């Protein structure tokens, strides 16, 4: 594995990306970023979850009993350029994102948070959040409003 990291460092355009949570979102992002030439590591508690990874994924998978700091250390978080927290649990994503940002100073940290009201607490932290609820709502309302424009 060490040789692989060295290779990655030489290739400046490639980034080291950790994705925590290999569900629908995590596995799709892993496939896309891996196909784009990045070094991607995916972490999950469930070995079965890695079956969701698409064929274009060529990175590593790490299975862990507990999603927490030690799993991040195992995935060499101190070398990561980007961390994406995409488990199915909002609070786990919030915790992982904070460990990445506040303890390991990962430059770019993104967390998926379903429940928008939880985000008020973390607005001042340098963590990007994606709320599928908010995204879906705006897509639906845009679609309806645009349709209205066409009719009128």
């Amino acid at each position, binding site marked *: 594995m060490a040789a692989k990291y060295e290779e990655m460092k030489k290739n400046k355009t490639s980034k080291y990306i950790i994705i925590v949570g290999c569900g629908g979102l995590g596995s799709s992002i892993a496939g896309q970023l891996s196909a784009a030439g990045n070094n991607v590591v995916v972490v999950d508690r469930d070995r079965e979850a890695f079956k969701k990874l698409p064929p274009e994924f060529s990175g590593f998978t790490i299975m862990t009993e*507990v999603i*927490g*700091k*030690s799993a991040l250390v195992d995935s060499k978080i101190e070398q990561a350029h980007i961390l994406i927290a995409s488990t199915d*649990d*909002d*609070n*786990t994503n*919030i*915790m*992982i994102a*904070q*460990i990445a940002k*506040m*303890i390991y100073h990962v430059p770019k940290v993104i967390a998926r948070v379903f*429940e928008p*009201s*939880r985000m*008020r*607490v*973390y607005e001042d932290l340098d963590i990007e959040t994606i709320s599928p609820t908010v995204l879906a709502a705006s897509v639906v309302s845009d679609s309806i409003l645009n349709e209205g424009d066409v009719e009128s």
Partner: protein
Amino acid sequence: MKIIVVGGGMKAYFLAKNLISMGYSVTMINKDKEDALHLAKIDRATVVHGDATLPEILEDAGAHTANVVVALTSSDPDKLVICQTAARLFGVRKTVAIVNDPGNVEVFKTLGIDYVVSTVRTISSLIQQSVGNETIMNLTPVEEGKVMILEVDVNTEDPISGKQLNLFEMPHEAIIGCIIREGKPIIPRGDTTVSSGDRLIILSLPQVQSATLSAIKRKVD
């Protein structure tokens, strides 16, 4: 003083009862409806049914006026979010979390939780320190086991029995802080003499605990 206790099932039940009997005002929050109904049977307790990791539920529980929030839920990430929301959105001064994963003690402290307790660490150190030491009546770890409080009863055959303290050799990292003699506490000075029947309350660093004990007590094989 108002305390909010989140999650915890029977632990919350007994904690709340205890705190109420000490005169605190207690509000409990529980996600599980059955648990919430059970907790509501406690006299003078307020119970909110809901997910305390959502700001609106903490608000319903009156987090604005709470002095302390204690997180006892089963998931560590939930505890973190509850304590951070309480402190950041509602200005709660003291947040307490009882964590499952001992590795989270440092994580939680770094992320601003005021008081983090690991039951695993506390119990492990209790077992480690007390197994084979039947002579210790009580052992209390302080600050995650960085300091230990030992209670030891003195018998006639023990080396310390009948000794004046300033003439008695024991490790420097331990001190006899109090002697309970016939039910009364004595704060010992150098000229105090220990006698059989005394209970010694000793403050000790864990690394000299066994050396301290072997200085005080007769060897038991």
